[in-house]
């Protein structure tokens, strides 16, 4: 609890965060190999729906979460930025796999590979693996849910109720 918080705001935060963390709608954003594992996570064996996170949206305007799964090339980087800006706030980004973390196996000679998606969009969680197992992605999503649950959520129209610290 921050210095400027009161009981109303913290309760509001809890309610909003509870709702947000349990209804993360990801954007279908398959770039490369990791996208197959992302699809496998959404399929029968791992079932991302159990975390309220399986509703893959085709449009950024309905999505909260961008799972950047795969190699980001320089040609694609500006599109990623554009899609990220089209997503409504609050929004989160998971960087899935070595390639989007830091360029992965393509960091040495990859003249056309962006070395880390965090050069284009701010990243919340870095998921290791090449490609990561579905469990690793689920773990990252649970980590993100934990992160959302402790943040100050009510900043929008109700933000005026929060006392200035």
């Amino acid at each position, binding site marked *: 609890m921050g210095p400027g918080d009161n009981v109303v705001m913290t309760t509001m935060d809890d309610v909003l965060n509870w709702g947000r963390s349990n209804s993360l709608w990801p954007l279908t954003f398959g770039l490369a190999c990791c996208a197959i594992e992302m699809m496998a996570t959404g399929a029968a064996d791992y079932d991302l729906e159990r975390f309220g996170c399986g509703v893959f949206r085709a449009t950024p305007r309905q999505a909260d979460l961008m799972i950047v799964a795969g190699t980001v090339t320089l040609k694609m980087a*500006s599109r990623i930025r554009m899609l990220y800006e089209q997503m409504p706030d609050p929004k989160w980004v998971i960087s899935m796999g070595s390639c989007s973390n830091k360029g992965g196996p393509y960091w040495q000679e990859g*003249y056309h590979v962006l070395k880390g998606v965090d050069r284009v969009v701010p990243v919340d969680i870095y998921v290791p693996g090449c490609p990561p197992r579905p469990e690793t992605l689920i773990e990252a999503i649970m980590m993100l849910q934990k992160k959302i649950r402790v943040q100050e959520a009510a900043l929008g129209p109700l933000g005026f109720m929060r006392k200035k610290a």
Partner: protein
Amino acid sequence: MTFDDIFSKLSVKFPKGVLGKEETKPDASIKIEPSAIHEVLKYMRDELNFETLHMVSGVDYPALPALCVVYHPGSYHHKMIVSLKVYLPRTDEAKVTSVTDLYKAANWHERETYDMFGIQFLNHPDHRRILCPEDWKGFPLRKDYVTPDYYNGMPVPLYFEDGAPTEGGAH
């Protein structure tokens, strides 16, 4: 029909166009004069039953120095693939006639060869880069290509020469 049959037929038909055989192992190839490649492929398609063109690729030989375009026409009739090589000077002015009007497969392969090696294809219907962005500079698969430091404000290498990590991008 074997590789030698094809070679002898081609060298009889095009005594000036066929420069010789390249005895590399395990697969040999036929050297063709740059100006004759269109005729040779047309002859192979129409007379020798080479219905399809599997691949067009470029090779950079900095030691010769030469740029090389390799054609792999294939035949379902004879169940074989032949490799034809065209050597060009290693400059930005390397030019060869496009074979897109013979095989549509050549369209994208030639665009890729242009993109990667800077070999110009004359009479090509859509002579643009294909894999790299349109405003890309340089031809990446040449052996002396140097990776740029920045592209559109985004740093390209992970670390710069002195080992320091490159600065973040747009945000």
